[in-house]
Structures are given as C-alpha cells and as structure tokens.
C-alpha cells in the first residue's frame, strides 16, 4: 500500500460499502422524528409554570410557584434571582443558561444540575440485608462494592465512590443492582444541534436526550424506567436484561440480569435471566435502598 493521500484512501475504502435501504431509513426518520417534535411541543405546553435558572459556577436553581428549592452552589457562585415566568419553554431557559458545553478535563469533573433529595443510600450492611430480604433469600454469593457516584455515566476525572453495586447470583445466573445519581455532569450533554442541554426531571433523565441515544421510558409510581435487552453475546442462548429506574429526586437504580454465570461467560445456566422484568422493576423501585438524610 503506497498511496499517500489519506483522503483518497478513505474514499476508496468506503466507495463500495453496502448501501443502506434508503426508503426504510427515511420513512423511520419521519415517523420517529414526528414523535419527538410532538413530545417537544407537549413539554412546552406542560412546563409553563416551571422555572429554571442557573447559578454561575454550575448549580441549578429550581423553583415551582412560591416554593423555591435552593440548591447548594459550587465555589465562586453568584446567585441569580428566580422569577416565575409563564411563557418561556423551561428547556430553552436551561439551554440559554448553559452558555457553553463544558467537557471538563482529565482532572476536572464538569458541573451540572444538582437535584434536591432528602434521602441517601443506606449503609452497606443495610443494602445487603435489603437485597436478601427482597429476594426471599434467593440471592447467593452477594458482593457489595463502592462504585462511581454517577449512576449511569462516567467521566475521566470522576473518582467518586458514592455509588453502590451489589453483585449476586440467582439459581447460578448472575445479577447486579447498582445505585447512584443521575444529576450532576451526567445530566448535561449536547443536543442534536450541538447546543448544551441539561435534564432536570426524571422522565428526561430516563430518556437521556443529552446522551445522544434516546431511550423509551415508562412511568411507574417510583419514577421513570427503561428496559433493555442488549445482545448478550457469548454462547448461543445468552440473555441479558436491564431495568433502569430514575427517581424524581435524582437517584438511578439499575437491575441487571443474565442467564449465565457471568457476562459472556459460558453456556446459559437458567432458561431466563436471573430476574425477570417485573422482579427487576420491583427491586429497582424499592424505597428500602435509601434512608433519610
């Protein structure tokens, strides 16, 4: 291979790529895109009493009516006054307030909204006891580890260990419950135009528009949740299930199940995943993972 032109090289390499089914792609884009347009318009209508402002330095001030909930600012903060508004789209307010998207650095975690909560995770012992009780003693080989505080995300500079992960087996098949926060830097990203976007509600956090791949979510009494059946890979018959629940006060609980002893490890040991969808949602929804702050 001697051709020196990288551009030509790349174009030659991709010249006869298998063409996708254009009609199908376009038709689906119109259908799914229409749903998003409708959802955005619905948000604008429903949110006329919600007010969002941004305190310099990254804290988010969230108010509703006459009950402001002031959140702790980061350093070098100057507080902006929250004024009830009746017409602006609150998402527009968030976007405007986020002047530029901040990716942070190798040593600095970027800022993000802080969602108020009156709960914290229970002690390690209490979490283990809760799992054992909720699964009627079926959970074996239980191991608890401290993991990233950001429940679903991760940043190169994030060294927090405020999250919890309980790994166990049910009838030999592996499962895991992870708990963390969905607010902070993980709630910030960019939308499809490249403009900064922040999510401040459980539904939006679940759908995660700031992460580029929207999720289909459903509402439950405990919050908004999404269900996934990723390709488990490994040997034939491998199954994988995850249920992620996002609460209004900023917590995310993921229940992850396999039908093998480990991820892509060996043949299936159970017919279905260690926990089914209903069990997983019930586990994720339990208030017993938390205690009052």
């Amino acid at each position, binding site marked *: 291979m001697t051709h020196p032109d990288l551009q030509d090289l*790349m174009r030659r390499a991709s010249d006869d790529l298998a063409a996708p089914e*254009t009609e199908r792609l376009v038709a689906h*884009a*119109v259908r799914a895109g229409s749903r998003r347009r409708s959802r955005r318009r619905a948000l604008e209508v429903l949110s006329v009493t919600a007010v969002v402002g941004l305190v310099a330095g990254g804290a988010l001030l969230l108010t509703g009516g006459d009950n402001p909930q002031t959140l702790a600012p980061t350093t070098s903060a100057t507080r902006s006054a929250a004024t009830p508004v009746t017409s602006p789209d609150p998402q527009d307010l968030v976007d405007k307030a986020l002047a530029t998207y901040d990716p942070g650095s190798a040593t600095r975690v970027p800022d993000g909204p802080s969602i108020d909560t009156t709960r914290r995770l229970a002690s390690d012992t209490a979490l283990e006891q809760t799992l054992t009780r909720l699964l009627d003693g079926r959970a074996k080989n239980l191991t608890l580890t401290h993991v990233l505080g950001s429940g679903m995300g991760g940043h190169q500079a994030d060294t927090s260990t405020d999250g919890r992960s309980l790994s166990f087996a049910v009838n030999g098949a592996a499962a895991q419950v992870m708990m963390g926060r969905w607010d902070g830097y993980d709630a910030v990203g960019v939308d*499809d135009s490249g403009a900064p976007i922040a999510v401040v509600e459980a539904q939006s956090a679940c759908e995660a528009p700031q992460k580029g*791949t929207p999720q289909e979510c459903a509402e439950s009494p405990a919050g908004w949740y999404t269900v996934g059946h990723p390709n488990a890979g490994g040997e034939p018959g491998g199954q994988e299930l995850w249920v992620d629940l996002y609460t209004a006060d900023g917590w995310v609980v993921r229940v992850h199940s396999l039908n093998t002893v480990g991820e892509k490890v060996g043949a299936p040991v159970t017919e279905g995943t260690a926990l089914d969808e209903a069990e997983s949602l019930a586990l994720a929804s339990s208030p017993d993972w938390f205690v009052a702050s």
Partner: protein
Amino acid sequence: MTRRHQRDQEFTAFATARIPALTRTAWMLTGDSQKAEDLVQETLIKVYAKWGPRIDNPAAYAQTTLTRTWISQLRRRSSHETPVADLPERTRRDTDHSLRVTLAAALDRLDPLDRAIVVLRHLDDVSTEDTAQQVGLSSGAVRNRLKRALARLRVDLDLPFHEMLNDGVPS
C-alpha cells in the same frame, strides 16, 4: 399541499441525497456496517425532529448531528463492548476489501475523538475550526490530536503522509 406534507417532501429529498455521504462517515467512525446504519438512522431522526427554516445548512447540520451523536454514544457504551471492524457483506473487489479491513483496523486503534477528527478533516473536508466545534474541543486541541493521529496512522498504514502532517498542523 399541507405544511407537513411539504416538510416531509423536502426532508425526504434531502435525506435520500445525503445518506451515502452520511453512511460513509458513519462507517469510518464506527468501523461496523450495522452500527453505521444505526448511527445514520438516529441522525436522520434528529434532523427531521428539528427540520425547518432555522436550519441554514442541512448538510452541515446533519454532519454535526452525526458526529455529536456518535461521540455521545461513546459515553454510554458499556465497558464490555469492543468495536469490531465489521466486513460489509457485499464487496466487489478483493483489493478494496483488504484496504477497508486494514483502514478500519488502523482507525479503530485511534482514540475515538482522534478518529472523529481524522474522519472529519480528511474524509469530509471539514475545517479545523468547524471540526473543533463539532467535537467540542479547541482548535489547538484538534490540531494536536490530528498530528498525533496521523503519526499513528503513518506507522500503522506504512504511508508517508508528508503533506498531511504539514496540512494545517503546526510543526
């Protein structure tokens, strides 16, 4: 003709024309034909959701959307997923098949952001400033990353790349 019908017609015409270029870029970024198609699909959904007179340059908007979507998807990729350079099912020439595999493997060894920068700068001919805006870095960072990526590709692909090393990259 209703406004909706007109919008759909305009979008369909645009998307049909742009899909080949988007697919090419998506494949270069993902190294996998199925993932590339998924990425193009998601991009088109987002473009349609915002389709309207506010989009001055739909082609540039779609390209930015594709890049941003891919970068965002990287954050959600679980730790056990490993990108694999998938081989397209239909190839006509053995020479270009080998070329594609080699190039895909070389790109896959780059840091994902570096890969995006190389693809934008050298496949899509995007300026350094526009590339910086798309990937969320400064122009200086883009230049440094490009220089590093080209040095890596130079070794992996056994190519001189003299002109690329000097192309907009401070020595």
